[in-house]
């Protein structure tokens, strides 16, 4: 009985997914303070260590963007626009603060709009550098310390090294659970569907880390317990892209006769598979993870060696995942106006194709209205001749 599993299994996930933010709303009523954030580059450990609950702001593909367009240009990543739209429409009225990292132009250029329009008690921009060299790392540590000081001021108390170490431990534990869940995708057919997994990860973004750990544990137990539930499908898909915060697209692929078994997405592998090293100064471990370990188009990786080696350094993790998870086709799914990924399309595509895996590149707009259009493309892609 799923309902009886402590910490809740997929039923709980469903609840948190369907009514995104319902738990935060409850916690707020109990006097907790919630800090909203955008993007996987927000060092949530610092927020947790300060005694706040980090809450990832999500858009809504079902809701046409209206209010946001009155304050923000439409030449911005539609996901960011949708997130802002939901915030303006009062979906996240429980937030006490907002933290925005320097991720991409769409996020960076709209920070002021967010800050002034939502007018929350706290707002902070984490000016993360682009490079990954030693100078950049050092600078980034300073930037993190500025954030730490600023947030401590808002909290009215120091954020001690010990509290940080504690938070890091928790978030690592959370990531370890996600990794365990990913293992269940390796089976053929997978033990957990792409749709389910996406839901789990989205639900997790809305919870305090302790509760997320518990929920993930429940899901793992349930999935393991139910055993091989799914039928074989002819294709195993990996989705690569920036952000997917809704199941619609994943479901579309799975409804078209394939399993989604791997990803390089946010939330997803990109966000969860790297953990923070335990270092004497916890900030050092954090800086290392966010700047160097997470591989994302927003970060500029310096070239060492020749071009092939460089591509391997940038995209090798995708190639390895394709092998490890038995992926036979890749969908490259990118929103219009996304600069970090938009510029990488030819390189990612040719890198993966060179490995013998076909790639479907889709540019999308973050709206349910495009689903019908995408369906034909995905079906045709699945029908393509594979050597």
């Amino acid at each position, binding site marked *: 009985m799923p309902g009886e599993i402590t910490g809740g299994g997929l039923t709980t996930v469903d609840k948190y997914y369907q009514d995104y933010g319902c738990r935060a709303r409850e916690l707020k009523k109990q006097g907790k303070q919630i800090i909203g954030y955008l993007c996987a580059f927000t060092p949530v450990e610092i927020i947790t260590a300060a005694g706040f609950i980090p809450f990832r702001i999500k858009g809504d593909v079902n809701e*046409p963007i*209206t*209010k946001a*367009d*009155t*304050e923000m240009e439409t030449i911005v990543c539609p996901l960011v626009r949708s997130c802002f739209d939901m915030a303006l429409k009062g979906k996240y009225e429980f937030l006490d603060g907002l933290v925005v990292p320097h991720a991409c132009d769409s996020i960076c250029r709209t920070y002021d709009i967010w800050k002034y329009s939502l007018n929350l008690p706290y707002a902070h921009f984490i000016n993360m550098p682009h490079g990954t060299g030693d100078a950049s790392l050092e600078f980034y540590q300073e930037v993190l310390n500025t954030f730490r000081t600023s947030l401590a001021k808002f909290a009215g108390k120091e954020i001690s090294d010990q509290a940080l170490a504690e938070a890091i431990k928790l978030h690592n534990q959370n990531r370890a659970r996600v990794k365990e869940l990913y293992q269940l995708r390796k089976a053929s057919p997978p033990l957990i569907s792409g749709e389910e997994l996406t839901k789990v990860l989205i639900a997790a973004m809305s919870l305090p880390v302790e509760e997320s750990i518990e929920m993930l544990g429940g899901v793992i137990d349930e999935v393991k317990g139910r055993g091989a539930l799914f039928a074989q499908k002819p294709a195993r898909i990996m989705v690569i892209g920036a952000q997917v915060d809704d199941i619609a697209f994943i479901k579309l692929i799975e409804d078209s006769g394939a399993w989604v078994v791997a990803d390089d997405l946010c939330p997803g592998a990109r966000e969860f598979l790297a953990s923070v090293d335990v270092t004497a100064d916890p900030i050092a471990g954090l800086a290392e993870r966010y700047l160097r370990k997470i591989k994302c188009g927003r970060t500029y990786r310096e070239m060492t060696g020749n071009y092939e080696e460089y591509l391997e350094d940038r995209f090798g993790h995708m190639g390895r995942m394709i092998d490890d998870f038995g992926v036979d086709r890749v969908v490259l799914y990118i929103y219009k106006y996304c600069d970090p990924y938009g510029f990488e399309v030819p390189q990612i595509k040719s890198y993966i194709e060179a490995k013998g895996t076909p790639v479907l590149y889709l540019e999308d707009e973050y709206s349910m*209205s495009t689903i*019908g259009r995408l369906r034909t493309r995905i079906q045709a892609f699945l029908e393509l001749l594979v050597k």
Partner: protein
Amino acid sequence: MVYVAGIDIGSAFSKAVVMAENKIIAYQVLPSGGNYKLTAEQVTEKTLTKAKLSLKDIAYTVAIGYGAASVSFSSETASDISCLARGVYYLFPNARTAIDIGGQFTRVLKLDGRGKATSFLLSEKCAAGSGRFLQVIARVLQIDLEDIGELSLKSKNRVDFNTGCAVFAESEAVSRVAEGAAKEDILAGLHRTLAAKIQTMVERLGIEPDCAVVGGGAKDIGLVRSIEAGLACKLLVPDEPQIVAALGAALLAGEKVAKGG
């Protein structure tokens, strides 16, 4: 008496208004058809006949609209926006916001309370955001443009469109009907799509009461209600919303004459 005229050769309809001493003497609306020059002559002639005047009685004529340049007999051409502002002010002096739903664009204006626009926005160059969308759908549903508003109000079960393109929406509407959807439900879906676009424009400019809605699209009560629901405010609709810009042009002509132009 000094007679002046305002002529608005729109993308969809042509309108002419003749005024004297700040009062409307006669007006006429005709579909624009293909030949703007000819339409301009026809609409003017019809109006003049109504007013029992001839062209030489008109002291000053201001032409505006898509085909303004085709009005060979005009004294000058002017900007649509400023004429709209004048026209709205004449009818509703208290209006501070005006929405004009025309055949090619939707325009939203901010008004200063003295007959001038202080800022404005125009819709994109896609028919799915303009009044033309209404015509397209009315035609395929074989309903008179005049009737779509009333009919859409009867909708109980709105049908939302799968496409954002006015052309594809046309075929979608047809198939929906073939599959048994009620025409009023399709119209209601159409109105929702258009109203959402218009609403965003209005909010972007910042709405201030009173808000008037003019242009041919304002004749569509279903659309007007849909916009009202979205904006949560009541809209002022003139008796003859389509001639407002032409009326403004005539007012401008009047000003010119008064200045001795």
